[in-house]
């Protein structure tokens, strides 16, 4: 449960003749419980890929499906964590997390249980009744992740989720996400332009060309990670020092550099 498939997907914005083609013949299969990151230059359409799985944009041609069913609308089975958090400022942390559960018509007892678990998981227990404006960026993003997790979604879609955070907070969040992913794995599609982040977090990394975006190559990180046992390191900087890590990172950089070309956006 929770497989994603892009089949011959094209995306054109604007009128069909003369519009902007952002995606060209995307073919990608993501197995259940696999963590896949997409990296690529600005404007290559990687966020659009995520939005199509989420159901916010339809493909112009081709098919985007989850569990074999074509995606037609957004829903809690494909939870989204946005770059700008998108928390509701008039609701407390607890109520923000609660909304998705209420929409599922779950009984109060179960909702309270799930919220308590999510708050524990994301270290938000002491802030349950605070409002978003009282929290730092990192905490707000934790709330957004908690809000997504509490739905127990098959698919987790993360659109540059740490892009709006400062460097130190970003590192902390990355370590936490890895911890979560090992403990509570599910299918994740993770969009980022930070190569190191992708290599650290993902099982596979798909590299996109510049616009119109195509999948240039897909690297299997997991094989290397398990062979070299990266998980023996608890700190991100130790992992990033490993030769195998550096090798993969450099490989991806080189590939992206080719995409920069003379006139990069």
């Amino acid at each position, binding site marked *: 449960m929770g497989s994603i498939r892009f089949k011959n997907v094209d995306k054109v914005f604007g009128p069909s003749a003369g519009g902007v083609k952002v995606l060209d013949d995307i073919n990608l299969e993501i197995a259940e419980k696999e963590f896949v990151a997409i990296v690529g230059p600005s404007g290559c359409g990687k966020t659009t890929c995520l939005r199509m799985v989420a159901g916010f944009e339809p493909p112009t041609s081709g098919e985007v499906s989850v569990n074999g069913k074509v995606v037609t609308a957004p829903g809690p089975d494909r939870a989204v964590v946005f770059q700008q958090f998108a928390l*509701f400022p008039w609701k407390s942390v607890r109520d923000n997390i609660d909304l998705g559960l209420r929409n599922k018509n779950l009984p109060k007892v179960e909702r309270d249980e799930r919220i308590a678990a999510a708050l524990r998981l994301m270290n938000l227990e002491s802030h349950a009744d605070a409002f978003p404006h009282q929290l730092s960026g990192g905490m707000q993003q934790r709330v957004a992740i908690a809000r997504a997790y509490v739905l127990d979604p098959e698919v987790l879609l993360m659109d540059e989720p740490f892009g709006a955070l400062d460097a130190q907070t970003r590192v902390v969040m990355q370590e936490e996400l890895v911890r979560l992913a090992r403990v509570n794995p599910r299918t994740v599609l993770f969009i980022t332009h930070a190569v190191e982040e992708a290599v650290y977090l993902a099982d596979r990394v798909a590299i996109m060309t510049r616009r119109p975006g195509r999948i240039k190559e897909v690297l299997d990180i997991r094989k290397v990670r398990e062979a070299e046992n990266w998980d023996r390191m608890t700190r991100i900087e130790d992992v990033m020092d490993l030769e195998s890590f550096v090798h993969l990172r450099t490989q991806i950089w080189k590939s992206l550099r080719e995409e920069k070309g003379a006139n990069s956006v």
Partner: protein
Amino acid sequence: MKALSENLKSVGGSADMAGRRGWIGLGTVAGLIALWFVLSGTGLVSSARFPSPAEFWVSLTQIATRGYAGGQLWQHALQSLRLVAMGFLVAIATGIPLGLWMGWSRRAEAVINPVFLIIRPIPPLAWIPLAILWLGLGDAAKIMVIWFAAFVPSVINAFSGVRAIDRPMIEAARMLGTPPLRMVVEVIAPAAMPMIFTGLRLSLQAAWTTLVAAELVGALAGIGFVLNMAQQDIYPGMILVGMVTVGVLGWATTRALGAAERRALAWNVAARD
């Protein structure tokens, strides 16, 4: 349009500077009152034009205790307040939902907008003769015109409020599987609330202006009626009393609205300025 004094607070200045500004303000008001005494006392401003402080006081006590134009001050004030409240409340109860709907549904906007565009340029006061033709000189005509005046800003601001909502917020709510009614009540309305309140302030202003005008044109009670009578009786002291009362009532209702706004928008720290 906020009070200029509120603008001052937002652009900094330490606590004792604010204190100093308060003193200067007080001094100005005191100075003006002193000037008023002097100008009337020396006859530089004839009392046929502008009442002296003494005349003002006499008129005030008269209407407050013995009454004028058919009632005491509180009765006239209550009458005006009553009409404003009714017109205002009906206007926002009809205007805000319409504005929210037009903001949310592009189809609804496309259908309703042309009619709105035609009606909108007609100033509310221009409806007064028609209202009197249709409903006579009683309360109904006034409420109709007040409703109309307060309706338009509410619709427009609710509409703008919805259109201004951050797209990710709506997408997040959709992603969470929020059904339509809950979407409106728990996401769209709160998100649009800051702009809605701006509209409410404008609506209240429009309501008062329209009420005073309507009562000036044709009424049998109310502050506007007092002003009208005072003008016909050539009674400047009472005219001033009427104007001051209008000001006070306007100020009081605006403050009440402000308090409601602060409570409703307690979460909106970002935009507080």
